[in-house]
């Protein structure tokens, strides 16, 4: 329990209430000021800490997709990578490839079309080949590549370094 500035306590309990006038005030003022300043020195970092930083979220570097056996051959699955969609393609031969699933045209989410053998964007009929290169339609750029790592049975997707 700290005493706020200037409080001198009930008169009478201490006969010397006013006796040491200046010195007592000084010490209590120093005490009060010190206490407040210390409180500020503690609260300032805490409050700054609570303010969310500009990059609001942690950047994901790798995501576990699941078991290799669970991914069908000649299929494409959309996986969440942090806050972005990634399409994981498993070819008929069994190899895996991961590409960004955000269409480079207007950011729709692409899908794998088994019948056409390409990655297709439903919004404006954009097409990409299985290496991500844009081959038809409005997309201006290829899809970004991600790394696929298979460890034992598990499949991981990570950022391409």
């Amino acid at each position, binding site marked *: 329990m700290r005493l706020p500035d200037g409080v001198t306590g009930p008169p009478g309990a201490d006969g010397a209430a006013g006796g040491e006038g200046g010195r007592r005030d000084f*010490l209590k003022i120093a005490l009060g000021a010190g206490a407040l300043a210390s409180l500020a020195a503690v609260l300032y970092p805490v409050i700054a800490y609570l303010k969310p930083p500009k990059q609001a979220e942690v950047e994901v570097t790798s995501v576990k997709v699941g078991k290799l056996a669970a991914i069908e051959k000649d299929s494409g699955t959309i996986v969440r990578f942090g806050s972005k969609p990634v399409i994981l393609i498993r070819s008929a031969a069994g190899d895996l490839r991961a590409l960004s699933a955000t269409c480079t045209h207007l950011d729709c989410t692409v899908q794998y079309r088994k019948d056409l053998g390409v990655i297709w964007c439903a919004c404006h009929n954009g097409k990409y080949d299985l290496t991500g290169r844009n081959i038809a339609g409005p997309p201006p750029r290829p899809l970004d590549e991600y790394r696929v790592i298979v460890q034992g049975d598990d499949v991981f997707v990570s950022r391409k370094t």
Partner: protein
Amino acid sequence: MRTPALIAAVLILAGRSATAADACLTCHQGLGDKPSALWAHDVHARHGVSCAGCHGGNPAAEDMERAMSRDAGFVGKPSGDAISAMCARCHADSSRMASLGAHIRTDQFALLQQSVHGRLALDGKQRIVQCTACHGVHGILPVADPGSPVSPLRVVALCASCHSDAKYIRTYNPALPVDQLEKYRTSVHGSRNAAGDPRVAQCVSCHGNHGILSARDVRSSVYPTNIPLTCARCHANAALMASYGIPADQYAQYAASVHGVALLVKKDLGAPACNSCHGNHGAAPPGVESISQVCGTCHALNADLFAKSPHKSAFDAGGLPECETCHGKHDIAPATAAMLGTGGGSICTRCHGDGDPGFMAAAAMKRLADSLAASDSAARALVEEAEQKGMEIAEARFRLRDARQAALEARTTVHAFDEPRFAAVVGKGLAVTSAVADEAARSVAEYYFRRIGLGVATLIITLLAVSLYLFIRRLERRQAAGRGGDAGFPFMKEDTHT
């Protein structure tokens, strides 16, 4: 049938001088068969080797039964590997060969066994090639003799007798080309060889003779890292090259060049050897227009940009070889920043004079490239400083890769000789470096801020601690003096126990 032969043999024998110790030959010559006819010119015959030298038997015996008897060591016509073994009995014997001349090799058989020709043939019973396949059987001549099938002017046809036979080669290696002879004849080597020059390169010059290894074999003289030296055997011989009017410095230049260092020192098989630009069997220097195509087989993007740039038409008009004009051909040095611009060591100023648009563009691009390099190293230095100070800055360091990427892209984009385009690429890099430098600078500032902040906080806490200490001391002094020291808590009565 035997009687006339016998009579003939006796007659011939009678007519011959006493030195004919080779009864086999006498008899067979009488028979008129081809081997014995050839044997007359054979180099072995000149050195006193008899038929029995290879076939065994008793050369002194006139009687066929005795001469060709197994007991006398007759082996008949050796076949398969026995043939080469027979040759090797003498030719691999160093003491015997030494008596004929100190320079004579004895390693042919060993080399043949290890070579690609020494592998098992289709029937699995013998090697693909025996000595006799190339040297002949009975009429073997020295290599230098123009009549020898392995002489420089004739060996090409000899090798081609198998190696241009698609059906035959397919049985051993379906991927092996069979057009070498055809291509060879289009080359300088091939046309001169056809014209009768024995000094130019033919099959043996590059591939070797007995110890021929597959081009994929590291030890082969035509393995990529060995090719430059193989070519240099002739092309670095100043005296030899002088007679053709060709310089002999290509190998030296190449070995010092960026391609040479990559291939010969770093063993990077992606780097070009002589044949990558000149061709293998159809070797010839590429024509002026072809150079950019040749370089462009690897440096595709640069070639593409160049072809669309204003320099293309200019170079064509001036008859200037494209890549070579700025980069050289054998002595290609790593591209440096100094090549661009208008300063010392710049290539642009070779053609562009002060004030012309090209000169201005070059100067502008150089300024941009320099600014990127400078801001990249500044950003890198700041990141290092932050790292040294123990600040967490892994992400910024990761993004610096993009700056390097931009610098590389700029180097390639230069070949478009288009300043705005170059500026765009450099601009990407500059954006990254300035962002990274900002973050690193902030990180370093944060480091100092933390220490200053700590100092301030410590000061405050010390102030509070000291005042508190003094307060306690005063309180307790008062309590001791019985005045019931007042901490100011209104609802407590202090009693002190003593």
